[in-house]
């Protein structure tokens, strides 16, 4: 089934590092799996559980949050807060065993086009292995 399964992935990318990294991946013509819908935000700290959970529960097979490496935030400290919020959400999903592996946080700098491609491709592979999100397939929701 992973063969014909095309996951829907949502990716929140910070404008300054990760979105630029994505552009660089493109302009250096790196191959990236065609499943991630990029949503540009100014800073990863704009992303909170509301946004990640909404995407996940409305049927995303995976949600990626990407921002500047710790210490590199264009707004100095945003990604530190983003990391804490993400850590909490991840922990919640882990303790209830609610598909924690479907959300991922990655740091990607503006010069890391290659890393962007690797992150997205590996994430895509992981989700394809996991198969469609039960949040989407479970009739009860």
């Amino acid at each position, binding site marked *: 089934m992973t063969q014909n399964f095309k996951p829907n992935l949502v990716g929140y990318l910070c404008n*300054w590092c990760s979105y*630029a990294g994505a552009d*660089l991946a493109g302009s250096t013509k790196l191959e990236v799996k065609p499943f991630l819908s990029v949503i540009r935000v100014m800073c990863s700290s704009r992303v909170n559980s509301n946004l990640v959970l909404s995407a996940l529960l409305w049927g995303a097979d995976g949600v990626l949050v990407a921002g*500047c490496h710790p*210490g590199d935030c264009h707004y100095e400290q945003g990604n530190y807060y983003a990391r804490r919020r993400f850590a909490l959400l991840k922990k919640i999903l882990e303790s209830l065993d609610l598909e924690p592996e479907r959300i991922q946080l990655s740091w990607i700098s503006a*010069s*890391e086009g290659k890393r962007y491609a690797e992150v997205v491709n590996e994430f895509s592979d992981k989700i394809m292995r996991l198969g469609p999100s039960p949040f989407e397939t479970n009739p009860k929701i």
Partner: protein
Amino acid sequence: MNPNILVLGAGVSGIEASLLLAGAGRTVHLVEKDMLIGGQTIKFEEVYPNLECSTCMVAPKQQAVLQSANIKVYLQSELEKLEGALGAFTARITKKARYVSLANCIGCGACYEPCPVSLNNPFEEGLSTRKAVAVPCAGALPNVPAIDPEQCLHLNGKDRNCQACKEACMFDAILFDDKDETFDLEVGAVVVATGFELQEATKFPQYAYGGGKNVYSALEFERLFASNGPTEGKLILRDGRTPQSVGIIHCVGRKEQGYCSGVCCMYAAKFSRFIKHKIPEAKVCEFHTDLCIPGKTYQKFHDQTRSLGVEFVRAESVGVAAKNGGLEVAYQNVDRGPGTFKADMVILAPAMVPRRDTPELSERLGLKQDSRGFLASRRGGLSPIETDIEGVFVVGCAQGPKDIPESVAQAEAAVGKILSLIPEETG
């Protein structure tokens, strides 16, 4: 007084000065020798002491420069001569032909692939090749290639029929008949931010630099660990192996130059961090004389580096020799006598020196060079950016070795002087 400003050099200092002046509503003529803006800083993956991603730091500023209505950027351009005085300078600029239209090119890179000519990429310190038509590195700004007329078969006449790039380009961006231009700019003040070079390591045979050995000069190593560099940030030897032991040699050429460059101790520590981060088991040894780590944060950075197991040897008369396939660093430990260190890779930290064209530049500007060959500050003043010509300011490493914050501060200082010397109302 003419409120417009000439800025020479689009490195981190030149960019900062231009943006601030543009912000004040001034027209800025930004003249850059190279085909892209960003200077040396964009060659670095990370900068000390916070190991911040350099591109992430500078790219937004580069974008801002290119998008600013008040900043006119002249690439591959140089100052021919400067005449006049504060408030009324005339600068003659020569602009080399790019052979690619900045207006038409959209940076798709379709022209690189078909070009038959490969050449050493100077931006990558010759560690990789590029085509005769290409941008120096991924993410270069402006993202528009230039054609090297010496190398291009069409332009150097070796094969007038070669139109490979022209045919590949869908935007009529290739201009074989592009010409060098010379023109005059009227400005009220000049900011000289032409930057520095590293002392050529070949000058010092004792370090066995060159000849395909794994001895790198600092700027080469910066590219070697840049994720948009020749190895995409993989730290490997020329034969692809991973280095297990790296020696970093400080103060290369310090004696000869007669000064300490002030930044090597810190970027050497940065290198050690990087190596330890990528290859935790690798042995890293720094050979230094006096450690110059001034300021409130640098000591801490240095101590943290030590705590990672990086070895520091206070050494003199350090030498490098190829030895059974690898390298050997022989040194005199100031306190404990002679010693050797087997290394797969050696990194040299050569002195920061004036750009080789400084003599011409100083003549064109009418500025003296100081005893070290840098553009001279006005004697007797307190601010090193002020020169003997009122209205001409020398900032950044053109004035002397310094790190990024100091260079930026000097650029901002020049803006401060200019805006107070030539206030808006007179303009």
